[in-house]
C-alpha cells in the first residue's frame, strides 16, 4: 500500500477534512498507477485537481503516482490554498534516510506543484492532461456564493454543497470538459449515489466520452464512486 500524505497540521474549521471520499480517491489512483504511468510514459503531463482542499490527493499523486508531472491545483478557498501548499511542502521535506535511499535509486525529480486560488480552472491555460475533482456533491437548495472576506465562516460550505442533485458544480466541469481536457487527457470525478452517476455516465457517453467506473464503496449511508472520462 502506498503511503498516505501527512495532513496533521490543518485547521478543519476552514478546510475540508480528508474523509472517506478523499481516501476513495487515493485508492482509486493506487489502482490506476500502471494505467497512468503507461499513458504518460513519454510526455510530462499537466495535472490539475479542482478544489484541492487539504491537498492530500494532489500530494498523493505527486509523491506516489505521477512524479514526473507539472501540477497546478486550484481552490476558491484561500485557507485551502495555504493549507494545500503547506501539505505539499511538509510531505516533500525528505528525512535524511529517504535522501540516502533516493541517491541509491534513480535520480529524483523536483516537486512541481503550485496551488492557485481560482474558480474551477478559469485561469488555467488549456489543455490539462489529468483532471481530478472531488466536487461539492451534497444535494442542497442552492450553491453557496463565494465569500468576499477571508475570515468568513462559510468557506467550508463551498466544499460540500452542490445545489440540485449535488450536481450543479460538477455539470459545470463536465459541460466544459471538451475545452479543458487535452486530446489524450483523462478526468477522474467522484460521485455519490444521489448524484445519479449512472445517468451522468449515460449522458456523457452520448456526448462522445468513454466513461468507466474505477472504484465504488459504501461509506456510512453514502455510496461513493469515481468515474473516469476519456475521449473515444
Amino acid at each position: 500500500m502506498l503511503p498516505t500524505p501527512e495532513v496533521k497540521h490543518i485547521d478543519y474549521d476552514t478546510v475540508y477534512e480528508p474523509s472517506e471520499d478523499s481516501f476513495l480517491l487515493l485508492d482509486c489512483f493506487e489502482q490506476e498507477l500502471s494505467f497512468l504511468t503507461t499513458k504518460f510514459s513519454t510526455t510530462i503531463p499537466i495535472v490539475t485537481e479542482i478544489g484541492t482542499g487539504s491537498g492530500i490527493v494532489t500530494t498523493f499523486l505527486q509523491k506516489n503516482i505521477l512524479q514526473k508531472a507539472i501540477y497546478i491545483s486550484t481552490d476558491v478557498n484561500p485557507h485551502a490554498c495555504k493549507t494545500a501548499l503547506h501539505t505539499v511542502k511538509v510531505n516533500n521535506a525528505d528525512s535524511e534516510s529517504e535522501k540516502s535511499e533516493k541517491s541509491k535509486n534513480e535520480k529524483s525529480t523536483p516537486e512541481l506543484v503550485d496551488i492557485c486560488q481560482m474558480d474551477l480552472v478559469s485561469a488555467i491555460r488549456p489543455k490539462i492532461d489529468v483532471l481530478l475533482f472531488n466536487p461539492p456533491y451534497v444535494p442542497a437548495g442552492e450553491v453557496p456564493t463565494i465569500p468576499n472576506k477571508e475570515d468568513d465562516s462559510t468557506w467550508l460550505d463551498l466544499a460540500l454543497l452542490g445545489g440540485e442533485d449535488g450536481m450543479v458544480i460538477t455539470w459545470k466541469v463536465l459541460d466544459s470538459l471538451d475545452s479543458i481536457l487535452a486530446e489524450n487527457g483523462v478526468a477522474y470525478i467522484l460521485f455519490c449515489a444521489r448524484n445519479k452517476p449512472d445517468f451522468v455516465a449515460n449522458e456523457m457517453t452520448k456526448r462522445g466520452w468513454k466513461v468507466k467506473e474505477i472504484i465504488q464503496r459504501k461509506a456510512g449511508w453514502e455510496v461513493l464512486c469515481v468515474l473516469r472520462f476519456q475521449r473515444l
Partner: protein
Amino acid sequence: MKFLTTNFVKCAVKGCQSSTESFPLKYSDCQLVQEEQEYNPEFLVHMLERLDWNAVIQVARDLGNDSLPPTKPDSLDPIMEEDQAVLKDLHTLLVETQIVEGRMTCNNCQHVYHIKNSIPNFLLPPHLC
C-alpha cells in the same frame, strides 16, 4: 508560485478567453525567492517540450532577465558540458525561482491579479464573473 507556472496561467475573465493578449500575464512588483530543488536534467529536457518559449522569454523579461535565447533550446544533451550549463540555468529559472509576492496584469483587459505568500489569486469580482 514557481516561474514554471506562469507558462500555464492566463487571465480568468471570460471575454479574454479568445484573446492572444491574455497570455502570458504581465508580471510586476515581484518579490522573488530561490528554493532549492532536485536537479534532474533528463526530466528538464522533457519538461521544455511542454513550454511556450515566447511566454518564458516575456515573463523572464518582466522579472528583469534578458539573457534567454530567442528560440527554445532543443536537442539538449545532458551529457554535453555546454548543454549542462544551459540546463542548470533553466533549472534555476523555471523550477527554483518562486514569485512570492507580486502583481499579474492581463494585457487584454488590464485586470490586475495578486500573488501573496506564493499563491496567485485569480478569483474575479462578481461583475467580471
